């Protein structure tokens, strides 16, 4: 049997941890509700811009544009979005390992652009060439940041610094279902959009105004910005959701441990009292 003081001290320690996890739970849930507002406002745009581009690709058999041409001996780059901190269950693990297994399947991986400290440390440990320029976007995904990021990615692609680009993020399917996803951004191909369902199958040939080139010149950058913004928001919302769940579980576990220890403490106290009484009784008996 542990001593009373020892049990008391453990209960105190667990109480403190519980306070911490409880606070983190509350913070995550308030951040989540803000992230969900942004997500709800954005996901229509995110899905629509992808389905529009798919629609165009499906109805225009021959597009001659630099963003659509596959290049040989491609230098592949990845854009991976994870969190800045741990303590959020399997969120970071899932997205990073999805990215890693995808990266290991391809040769010629040159660059990994990362968002979030956890992602940076992970890929440095694995010995990859990590570009941490966009690290700042993990905490506060804004449209302004995404525009900056997208412009840099497009620039790197059009200057032939990279030839293929994949985006890895966590898609928020529902409030309990978060799925890490890999999207191919460049070059733009019909096969990049297999997961997109067209809400309207329209068979007639599209007319481009004023010309296919002008439209695509405008559409591709918008598409990249839109997708980057959407991916940042969904990843952020997923992270908060994961952290909320993890901290909720941690708080519950702490409660359970405290109640178990409390019982132990009571038992120990009881046995101390019993002992004392027994001793007194023994003393009385000896006097008689």
């Amino acid at each position, binding site marked *: 049997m542990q001593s009373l003081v020892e049990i008391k001290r453990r209960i105190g320690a667990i109480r403190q941890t519980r306070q911490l996890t409880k606070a983190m739970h509350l913070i995550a849930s308030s951040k989540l509700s803000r992230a969900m507002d*942004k997500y709800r*406002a*954005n996901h*229509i*745009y*995110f899905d*629509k*811009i992808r389905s*529009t581009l798919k*629609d*165009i690709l499906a*109805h225009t058999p021959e597009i001659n544009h630099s963003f659509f041409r596959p290049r040989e001996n491609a230098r592949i780059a990845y854009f991976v979005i994870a969190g800045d901190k741990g303590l959020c269950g399997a969120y970071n693990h899932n997205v990073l390992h999805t990215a890693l297994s995808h990266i290991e399947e391809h040769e010629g991986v040159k660059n990994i652009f990362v968002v979030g400290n956890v992602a940076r440390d992970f890929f440095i440990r694995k010995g990859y060439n990590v570009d941490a320029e966009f690290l700042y976007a993990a905490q506060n995904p804004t*449209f302004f940041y995404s525009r900056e990021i997208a412009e840099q990615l497009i620039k790197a692609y059009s200057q032939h610094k990279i030839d293929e680009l994949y985006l890895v993020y966590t898609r928020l399917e529902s409030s309990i279902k978060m799925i890490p996803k890999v999207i191919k951004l460049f070059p733009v191909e019909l096969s990049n959009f297999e997961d997109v369902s067209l809400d*309207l199958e*329209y068979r*007639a*040939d*599209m*007319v*481009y*105004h*004023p010309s296919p080139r*002008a*439209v695509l010149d*405008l*559409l591709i950058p*918008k598409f990249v*910005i*839109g997708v980057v*913004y*959407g991916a940042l928001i969904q990843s952020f919302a997923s992270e908060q959701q994961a952290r909320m769940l993890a901290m909720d579980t941690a708080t519950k576990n702490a409660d359970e441990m405290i109640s178990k220890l409390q019982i132990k403490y009571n038992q120990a106290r009881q046995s101390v009292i019993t002992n004392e009484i027994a001793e007194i009784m023994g003393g009385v008996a000896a006097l008689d």
Partner: protein
Amino acid sequence: MASEFYLEVITPERTFFQGNVEMIIVDSLDGELGVMKGHLPMVASIAIGTLKIKQNGKWKEAAINEGFMEVLPDRTIILSHTVEWPEEIDTRRAQAALERAQERIRQRRSMTEYYQSKAAMARAMSRLKVKKRYNLD
């Protein structure tokens, strides 16, 4: 009664407009472009300017950033980074942005910056234009 078609105007941060309308007019790269029901399928670029929507016989106007639209015979989707109703436009902010852009153009920096400044200037001017016209009505 003119026949109607379904219009959706979507930005990354909100759904700006959805509903049945009679006609829309946008600024395309080479001039104004009107769309009514039964238009042939088309993807069109949208230049910085104004978006005019005719609903229930009344015209409404909004300032729109670069974007594009997908036109189908019975529905049209407009995607743009920002679209604003006149009452949402902050005149002072637009005016400040206009002056900033003009100043940058005067300084004659790189070509990319020149294009960016020109775009910023066009955005500010379209906002001011929409705001001004709305206030005169």
